[in-house]
Structures are given as C-alpha cells and as structure tokens.
C-alpha cells in the first residue's frame, strides 16, 4: 500500500513533467531537450526573486514571474533555435543538448552545484489509506489532475485547441487553411513551458534540484513518453503511473535502490524502443511522418 500511494503520487508528478515534452513532440515533431531546462529555470528564478525581494513577497507573484521566466526562455529557444531548423531532427537534438549543457554550467557558475530547496506551499502531512504523505505531494497530484483536465478541455473544446490538434496531425492542411503554424508552435512551447515550470516549482520543495538534474528529468520524460506511446499525450498518465510505482518499488526492494531508481527509467526507454517502439498506446506509423 505504501508503494502504491507513494508510487501513484510520484507518477502524477512525473506525468506533469512528461506531458509538456509530449506536447512539443506531438505538435512540432521535435525532441526539444531544453524542455528540462524550462523545469529547472523556474525554481532558480523563484529563489533569486525571494532572495532579492525578501521573504514577504507574495507567493503568487513569485510564482507568476518564475513561470514567466521559463516561458520567456522557451519562446527564445523555439523562435531562434528550433523553428528555423525544425526539419533537421538530429541537429535540433544536438543543439538542444548543447543549450542544456550551457545553461547547466551557467547555473553552476551563478548558483553553485548545491541543490536548491523551495519552501513548500502546503506544509505538513496527511494520512491517505493508512500512509502518511507530505501534503505537498498531494498538492502535486491535485495540480497534475487539474492540469490534465484543463489541457483536455482546452484541446478538445476550444478553437485554439483544435488548431493545435490539426497542426499536430496535418501541418500541411493547417497551412493551406491559412493557419499560422509558427504561432501554433510557439503557443505549444508556451504551454509546455508553463507546465514544466509549474512542475518545477511544486516539485522542488520535495525533491531538491541540482543544476545537472535536467538530464534525469529528460530521462523521466522520455521514459514516460515512449512507454505511453509517442504521439499520444494522454498515454503519459498511465505510463507515468507505471514508472512512478516501479521506481518506488525498486527503491524499497532492491539493494542500492536509491541510486538505481533512475535506471528504471533508462531500462524502460531501452526495452520499449528496442522491442516495442510504439509503446503501450502509441500511434503506429507516427515515426514515418516525421
């Protein structure tokens, strides 16, 4: 039971991390590896803000500005770097890795390599099904659920959401209908950055953040995406839950579990891509399109 509750909550957090990247992958059809940086920037920005403006700053202000910082970075990266070279997948891959490595060094330079901790929004813990969990974790779970719900509503019920879905499936059709694809890609990037930043701000009180964690985050996002199936963002939820539960189980039952945890994600990626590239719910033939 302990494993289940903690695993599910962890999984929900992972889902939050993965869904943004899945969005970018689904719409712009690129592997944007700076995505993990959108997650990372927000807590660092928040910390910097709190340090300069003092601890009495209203948290919602800090929240908004930090998310804004991530969004700004995402916009810059996509507009300047990714969109011009969108069709060359490997170049995007290498370039975004490069940007990630650069930002990592910048953060180490400015803020040191010690992990940072944001103050939790919800303090204390509650008892869920007989297991004591930190309230912050519950908050994460709740936020993930609402984000997913909002995303679903946005994508299926609004015109803009429809535009995004059309661009994801048939960019040519969108162009012919007079749609501005560039705007759609940028919009997707903004959405993804918001999700990532929120994830960062909510999760860093629980899991201390190092500047070099972006690689781990990418692995988590990848594991969730490939397990769920590329091209299908809703599959991120079950996949993330599976990952979360497996990691918790490994951490408890296997020696050195704490360190091996990350390997679970790696092994999942490996096994899925080698043996069943479409993942659990993937759309067949998606790879041929890209």
């Amino acid at each position, binding site marked *: 039971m302990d494993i289940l509750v903690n695993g599910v909550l962890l999984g929900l957090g992972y889902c939050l991390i993965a869904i943004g990247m899945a969005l970018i992958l689904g719409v712009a059809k690129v*592997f944007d590896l700076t995505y993990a940086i959108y997650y990372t920037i927000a807590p660092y920005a928040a910390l910097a803000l709190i340090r300069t403006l003092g601890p009495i700053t209203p948290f919602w202000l800090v929240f908004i500005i930090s998310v804004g910082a991530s969004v700004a970075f995402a916009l810059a990266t996509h507009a300047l*770097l990714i969109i*011009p*070279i969108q069709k060359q*997948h*490997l*170049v995007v*891959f*290498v*370039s975004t*890795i*490069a*940007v990630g*490595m*650069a930002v*990592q*060094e*910048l953060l*180490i*330079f400015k803020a040191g390599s010690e992990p940072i901790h944001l103050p939790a929004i919800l303090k204390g813990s509650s008892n869920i099904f007989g297991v004591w969990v930190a309230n912050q974790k519950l908050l994460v779970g709740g936020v993930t659920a609402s984000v997913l719900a909002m995303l679903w509503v946005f994508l299926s019920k609004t015109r803009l959401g429809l535009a995004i879905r059309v661009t994801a499936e048939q960019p040519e059709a969108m162009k012919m209908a007079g749609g501005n694809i560039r705007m759609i890609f940028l919009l997707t990037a903004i959405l993804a950055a918001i999700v990532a930043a929120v994830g960062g701000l909510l999760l860093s009180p629980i899991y201390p953040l190092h500047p070099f964690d972006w*690689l781990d985050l990418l*692995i988590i996002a*990848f594991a969730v995406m490939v397990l769920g199936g590329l091209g299908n963002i809703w599959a991120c939820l079950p996949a993330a839950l599976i990952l979360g539960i497996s990691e918790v189980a490994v951490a408890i039952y296997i020696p*050195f579990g704490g*360190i*091996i945890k*990350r*390997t679970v994600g*790696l*092994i999942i*990626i*490996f096994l899925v*891509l*080698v043996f069943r*590239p479409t993942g659990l719910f993937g759309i067949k033939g998606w*790879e041929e399109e890209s």
Partner: protein
Amino acid sequence: MTETIRLLQVPLNYFRKEPIYLIIVLFFILELIFPFIISNYWILRIILFANLFVIYATSFDLLAGYGGIISFGHSLFFGGAGYLAGLLSLNFGLPLIVCIITGCLFALIVGLFLGYICLRLKGPYLAVVTLICPLVVLTLLYISPTILGGENGIAGFAQLAGGSLVKQFYIVLIVTTISLLIISVLAKGNFGLILKAIREDEIGAEAAGINTTKYKLMAFIVSGFFSGISGTLYAHIMGSIGPTMMSLQYGMIPVFMVYLGGASSIIGPFIGAYVVTFLDLYLLAFPYLRIIIYAATIIFVLRFFPNGLIAVPNEIGRLKRWLS
C-alpha cells in the same frame, strides 16, 4: 571470404587519387620531430591528447558521417575500454599491452551488441538509445564504489611507458598514424562506399545487393574498436579512470569534433580534434564559460556551416560570388 577481398580491392591509381594518405604520412613525419623542437612540456602533452582524440573522432565519423548512424553513446566504448584496461592493470597487474588489447576487444564486442540493438532504430530513436546506454553502465559504477571506483574513479595503475612523456608521445603518434591509415583505407574504399549507400537509402542499398545488416554491424564494431583504442591509451596516460569517461560529456566530444571539422571525411575529424583540444586548453581558464562556448560553437556551426570547417573554403567562395 571473397567479400572481404572485394572490400580491400583498390585500383592501381588509388593512392594517387586520394590525397589523404599523403597528408597522413606528412603529418607523421612532421610530428616525429615535435619532441625535439617543442620544449614546452604542456604543449607536447596537448598534442598527444589531440592525437588520441583524432582516433576517437575519426572512429565516430566512420559510423556517423559515412554510415549515417549517429550514436551519442560512444563514451561507452571510450570509457568502457578504458575502465577495463585500468581495472585489469590495477587488480591483476597484467602487462600494459595485454590490458590495452583486452580493452579494445571488449569495445569491439560491445560494438557488436550495440550495433545489433540499433539495427532497427533510426534517427532520434537511435540517438536516445545510444545516449542512455553509457548512463546505464554508469549507474553500475556508482553502486560499486569498492570494486569499480564509484564516483571518484580509480587511480594509481601502471602508466604507459612508465610515465615518460616522450615515449608516450611516440607510441600515441604511431598508433594514431596506423589507425588513421586503416580507417582511411576502409572509408575511402568499398567499405566506405557501402556505408554511404546505406546512409543515403537503406532500402536502396539492400536492393543493390548490399547486406545492410552485416555492414551496419561491421561499422559499429570497427568504430567501437578504435574508440576503445583511444580510451585505453587515455586511461593509461592519465593513470586514472573516472565516471566522466563514460559521461554524456565524453559522448558529445566526438560529435562536436566531427561536426565542427566536417563529417564524412578523414581530415574533418582530424581538424575538429585538434581545434577542440587546443581550444580546450585556452578555455580551461574559464571553467564555466568553457561549456557555454562549446555549446554556442556547435549550435552556430550546425546552423551555418553544416558541412564543417573543411567546407569553409567552398562557403567563402560561394559568398564571394554572391557578393560580386
């Protein structure tokens, strides 16, 4: 058997047609006298490492530039072979040459496995799988600090040529030259052509009578083997092995070098290796700026000079014509 013979067949005017051999020979002769004319210990050492990375980068190019199989996990070969060699030397006191050869053979076998896994993968999927393979092995390192050295690595095993820089320099120079010659023969000959065909259109290559599976595997094996050579030599010259040897950073090194210099050539990775190694020397003074500069450089190069530095003369020519 006849296939192997065909691979190595070369027409009579081959060596005259390919300037690379002349360049390699000149390079060898020139560097032969370096220890006599260069008195600065550090510069000599830098050139030594540049040569090592030439092997690393060129082996990567064979797979990535010629074969179109871009693996981000070559640090698996480099670091893996290095670790094995270092461990054998430390724990069993085996003679250096045995350690090095074992390390290289290990890299060769790993190449076979990785190649087999990657047979059906393409583009970004291949990139991701190759990227995570060394990371999985790295985790193994972290959980066995006593045997495998954990985070801090292992030091104190035998050094190449007992630590004498001059002797090390000559050994590395000879190995580099021989490696370059072998890789050139492969790349500029039928083997390279087959790889290029597979790169351009795998189905078309199969329809041309090419056993694509076999040649993709061979490319992995050869590439892994030579990366292993550079890894084992590196380990024995540094006298230590550490997890960075298998990190993403060391996996990106050949990528940087090859795309900076120019892929699908022998001279490209060569230039890339030298430029990056020397650049690194100057950038060591700015530890954080260093990576930022590398990142900016590779992004810039990929965007505006996708064919690398060796294509710059062409690009300048084009620019001149466009301006006039």
